[in-house]
């Protein structure tokens, strides 16, 4: 058993080793993102009340205060130095530490992402299985059409209609805001619609492929009930590509969705970075991109670990 055990550790260590350069690359990209944009945060800050028109020397003073007059490489190293001590710098607009603001907004995005992930799993997988199970029957076509519509409709178009229908006319659900769970239902549905459709289609395809395997035929020959063949034999084998899709989706959604959060006025990470980009708030953009970089890296590792769980050959064979 010893060699197998080290197999997994070696596998994880190798993955972790790749993380460091990736993370550094992401931090450099994050820094560049802010710098390449042609506008000057100092001017923006001084004229953001729409009234005052800053003079040249005021702008210069502000640039110096923000440290923008130093060469880029120095700015990057200073920023990186701070980051390694856990200080993501101060937001230009709100003057609050970026880390605190990110943490303040994280629960909003995490709950929304969590609910929508649950929706995708609890709706996508069973319906996907149902479609594969009743291949080419009535329900299969209806569900395939629904899945296709889900993936093809833009989420904001869906949101506009759903707010109009459920919140405005039927007044069943609140239109926007954050606080109670009922406020998260509509955003979660619109956020999950696209990926639920994609998951259903993927699950159907992979399950159909698995159901043609020899061991499924052997299971039928053993007289096992249909549900057991589908759920206990078929599904576990068809979950691996689904896990990849869910891993990528959750990793992405954890970065917050600018569109959904602005429509439903949810103060999450997405709307936060949208404001930061519009206000050229460099520290916030860089802090945010770094944060999503970490989420991506962690999620990649998680997805790989789930692979190990699902596929004994890799887990025990040590790839």
């Amino acid at each position, binding site marked *: 058993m010893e060699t197998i055990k080290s197999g997994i550790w070696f596998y994880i260590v190798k993955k972790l080793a790749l993380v460091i350069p990736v993370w550094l690359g992401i931090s450099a990209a994050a820094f560049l993102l802010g710098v390449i944009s042609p506008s*000057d945060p100092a001017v923006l800050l*001084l004229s953001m*009340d729409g009234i005052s028109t800053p003079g040249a020397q005021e702008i210069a003073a502000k640039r110096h205060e923000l440290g923008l007059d130093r060469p880029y490489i120095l700015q990057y190293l200073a920023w990186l130095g701070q980051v390694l001590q856990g200080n993501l710098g101060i937001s230009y607009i709100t003057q609050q530490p970026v880390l605190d603001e990110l943490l303040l907004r994280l629960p909003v995005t995490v709950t929304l992402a969590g609910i929508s992930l649950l929706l995708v799993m609890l709706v996508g997988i069973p319906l996907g299985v149902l479609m594969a199970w009743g291949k080419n029957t009535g*329900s299969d076509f209806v569900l395939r059409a629904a899945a296709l519509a889900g993936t093809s409709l833009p989420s904001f178009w869906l949101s506009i209609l759903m707010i109009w229908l459920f919140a405005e006319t039927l007044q069943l*659900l609140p*239109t926007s805001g954050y606080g109670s769970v009922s406020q998260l239902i509509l955003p979660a549905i619109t956020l999950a619609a696209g990926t639920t459709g994609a998951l259903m289609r993927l699950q159907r395809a992979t399950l159909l492929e698995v159901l043609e395997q020899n061991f499924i035929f052997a299971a039928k020959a053993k007289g096992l009930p249909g549900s057991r063949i589908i759920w206990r034999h078929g599904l576990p084998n068809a979950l691996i590509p689904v896990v990849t899709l869910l891993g990528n989706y959750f990793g992405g959604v954890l970065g917050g969705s600018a569109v959904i959060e602005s429509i439903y*006025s949810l103060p999450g990470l997405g709307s936060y970075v949208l404001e930061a980009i519009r206000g050229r708030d460099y520290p916030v953009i860089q802090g945010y991109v770094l944060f999503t970089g970490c989420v991506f890296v962690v999620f990649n590792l998680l997805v790989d670990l789930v692979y190990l769980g699902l596929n004994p050959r890799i887990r025990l064979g040590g790839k």
Partner: protein
Amino acid sequence: MEKGRTLVKAACLLALFGLGLFFSYSDQPAQPPDPDREIVLAAARDLTPGSKDPYYTSLILEVWEPLVGVGEDGQPAPKLARRWEHSDDYKEWTFKLTEGVTFHDGTPFNAAAVVQNFERYRVISPRTSSFYLFDIHKIYPHLRRAEATGEYTVQLTFDRPFPTLLYSMTNFGSAMFSPACFDARTGDFVTAVAGTGPFKMIGHFNKQYTLLERNETYYGSKAKAKTIRVRNIPVAETRYSALKAGEIMGVLDIGSLTPALTSELLKDQQFAVATKRSSITHYLFCNGEKAPLNDPRLRQAISLMVNREVLVKNFFHGYAIPTNNFINGASPFSNVGIPGRNTAKAKEVARSVLQDKTADIIFLVPQYGIDRYPYKEIAEFIQAELKELGLNARIVVMDWAAIQDARANGRFDIILGTQGLPNLEPASLFQNYMKSTGSANVQYRLGYKNEEADRLLAELDTATGTEEREKIYDCLQAIARKDPPCIPLFDDLNLAVYNKKLENYQPLLYGVILDKVGWRQ
């Protein structure tokens, strides 16, 4: 195989039915309307930026009050400062404070508190804010010292005469906070803000809402509503839906609701709108350092060509006031400017300037304008009008930062945008825009050079008498009408849209009279 599948399908249908049942059952039974129940309003931005903002929260929430406010007629009106007088040379100003006033945290409001606030002004200047950039050197230029000459009298001494101090001090210029709630060294707020206003702030959750409660010990007439929650809903359409769904009872602050949505909403009888001039004017900023708009005659031609009435009727749905006067009508010093439209003259002037040729120009439109006002439709309408003058305008929508950059590098010909009146006394606006070395003139590349204006502005620096200054303002406005630094289009209207369940939902120059708002009985 078959039995299992029908089972799962049945489960799905059952779930849907259950969901439907849950929803239809969930709306609360109607109780009799309790007059003290919470009033929920909404604004496009977070009106409480918090401890690092010079004012912690916006004036319109009436949590803090200034020494000097603005009256109905747009003139400076007494607020925390009851009376004031100044020395003949306008260098010493003495203020008599209202007595018997306490801050929300119990500390008494007196001359000592005012002086501590002035110390804070000095420490925090300059500090940016989404409301009004606070800089003591601009609001109280050449202020030598502020001292308490009595328990309720404060004296400000200036090195140079400052006749328009009162205008500069109105509202955001003289905000008063309890000394106990801010750190004297940094000027940042350390506790929740404690002002003297009719509402106390009892809660604020980042970017979500601000919770106000009636100040029972207010020295003036107490607020009507017991608690008001002001939510932050950035997208206009969502505010519209929230109004329709009855989640919010009214909208306030800049860009409360777009004109189009307002007229759409008013088709529903339960809503109404009250309007009042705001201090914001919409302009076409021209790049005066680059052909073809460096020729003032062409700028004049454009001003004559633009059909302000149709723009207001079709796209502002009547919620704006056409003007060609450089100074916003809200200022008591502004002369009424009825824009005369003369397309024939405009085309003739344009043809002569462009020598019968056409010119390609870049027309920038800010994204914030599209979110708040019908800027996209207006831009595309003006684009069509400019074509008749031989100007082929290419519209580029940019976010505000990109436009600032394009402005700084002169990569534009026309920009549609807004400019707020710094304070009701137009001196600083004239200085910034019409003086050849004015900050806006240089930064925004207006390329405006008018000797007459420069002379008048130099004279203004030393003029102290109000009639004298008014005369200069009238001349400057006349010059601006003939040779506009930038083309004024409309004066913006503050739209106070509300559900008729409320009463006294009256707009101010900026915001709403919050303490008058209450449930209709």
